[in-house]
């Protein structure tokens, strides 16, 4: 909504940067800031920082194409991590929605179950990681389960919060027209809770990624966690940073996907 508002005066406000529109100015400012950060990082790593801990961006890009992407084992590890995150996220969404909708459906459900959810949410799950390993082994199942356990909570919490204050008249009117419970969820609750739901979905995505990577770091015999640890322990920052960059790109991609979906569902607000 802010974007739309900012776009309005964009027409052709003459400005000192060569008659650039306000929007173009914003975009170029952003790009310059990013570029400045990269350059600063490059200078710091090259001339000041400890080369065993820091690596200049140029070296990172080089390592990405020379060490990371050419190694089929690492490519496999990246692919596996991506699959784990994706599967965990989809499961977190489904479970989170089902649990959230059931808990938030009635006052009774909310009052009886919501405090339990909040309680569980408050526990730092890392301390349960050994339990996950015992239950799911050290393969992908463990990472997926751990990712799910992180991702579902913000989704449940935001679904329940989003279902609150739904206009009772919408529900009544829909029921009078013969809407089933599924119809109510699909056409009343869902659109009503979209803003809150997507806040939950984004947070859930970040936490799913966190859960998967935590599990990867803790137990991995060849996954992305194994390689990260290897590079860190051998003080080889360039490929380490390259690997981190790959994970970051993964996070950004997923986040973008969620954002596109959100925009699709909030068109009516503009």
């Amino acid at each position: 909504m802010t974007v739309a508002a900012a776009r309005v005066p964009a027409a052709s406000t003459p400005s000192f940067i060569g008659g650039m529109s306000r929007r173009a100015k914003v975009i170029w400012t952003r790009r310059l800031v990013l570029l400045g950060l990269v350059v600063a990082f490059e200078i710091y790593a090259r001339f000041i920082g400890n080369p065993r801990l820091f690596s200049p961006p140029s070296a990172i890009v080089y390592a990405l194409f020379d060490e990371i992407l050419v190694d089929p084992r690492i490519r496999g590890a990246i692919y596996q991590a991506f699959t784990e995150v994706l599967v965990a996220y989809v499961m977190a969404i489904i479970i989170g929605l089902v649990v959230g909708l059931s808990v938030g459906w009635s006052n009774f459900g909310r009052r009886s179950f919501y405090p339990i959810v909040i309680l569980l949410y408050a526990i730092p799950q890392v301390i349960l990681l050994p339990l996950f390993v015992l239950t799911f082994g050290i393969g992908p199942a463990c990472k997926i389960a751990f990712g799910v356990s992180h991702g579902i909570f913000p989704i449940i919490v935001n679904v329940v919060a989003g279902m609150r204050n739904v206009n009772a008249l919408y529900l009544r009117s829909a029921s009078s027209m013969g809407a089933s419970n599924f119809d109510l969820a699909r056409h009343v609750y869902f659109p009503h809770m979209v803003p809150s739901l997507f806040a939950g979905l984004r947070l859930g995505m970040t936490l799913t990624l966190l859960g998967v990577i935590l599990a990867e770091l803790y137990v991995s015999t060849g996954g992305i966690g194994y390689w990260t640890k290897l590079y860190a322990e051998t003080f080889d920052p360039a490929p380490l940073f390259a690997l981190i960059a790959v994970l970051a790109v993964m996070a950004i991609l997923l986040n973008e996907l969620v954002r596109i979906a959100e925009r699709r569902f909030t068109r009516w607000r503009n």
Partner: protein
Amino acid sequence: MSESTPFRAAAAGRPVAISIRNVSQRFGDAGSPNEVVAVDDMSLDVRRGEFVCLLGPSGCGKSTLLNIVGGLFPATDGVVMVGDKPVKGPLPRDISFVFQESTLFPWYTIRENFDVAFKFQNVAKSEWASRTKQALEAVNMGAFIDHYPNQLSVGMRQRVNLARGIALGTDIILMDEPFAALDEQTRMVLGEDLSELLAKTGKTIVFVTHSLAEAVFLSDRIFVMTARPGRIKSIIEVDEPHPRSPDFMLTPKFSELRNQAYALLRDEVRQAIALAREAEAAHA
């Protein structure tokens, strides 16, 4: 109430569309201090094609009664029959609602709103477009089919809301203060439209309003209710064929009926206000 009017004679021959028998509604746990008897042992019949108005002070249980008739929640006591079926839940094929605030979903365009209503009601998809178009054109809103409700004025929105209630094609329409949020002029125009619709389609309408003029202008019978707990205090018959023209409002008959309704209502309104004060004092 006159003994035997021509209307009564005509209506008496028609089958009963809605039969309300000894309906009571309590909210809150029985015996607890927050127990509220909203409706107390009400019985009334509405005949097919009749336009009936519920008139009563605020909080006397009009909306509650309407919701019970529409099957939105079960009555504590008593039965409602629609045709020969007891009401046990919503009857989307027989009854549609038009609520005061526009209940169009803000997240759907007008077209999508109609579509989703037909979907809820299980109407064949092939009929959706034509029924939507026809209903919108009847209220002169055809041009706004792809607008979101927020892009319309309150009056326009409520006209669309009314059109949706009609498009659903049920024989019975329950209306809970559908025009309350509208300005006086729009209200009157829509009232005329409604009267015309009634004459054309023979729908059965139960209508809740706080406007005496609206009640007299539209109704065949006005049920004046008492303050809480709601009971029927009196029935006023308006013997005037539909469609009614605005000229009807200028006749002595109209003012007489209006005054009659007001006289019946005045004490109840006072009583309701006293009740509200009492409740507030008890709360403090």
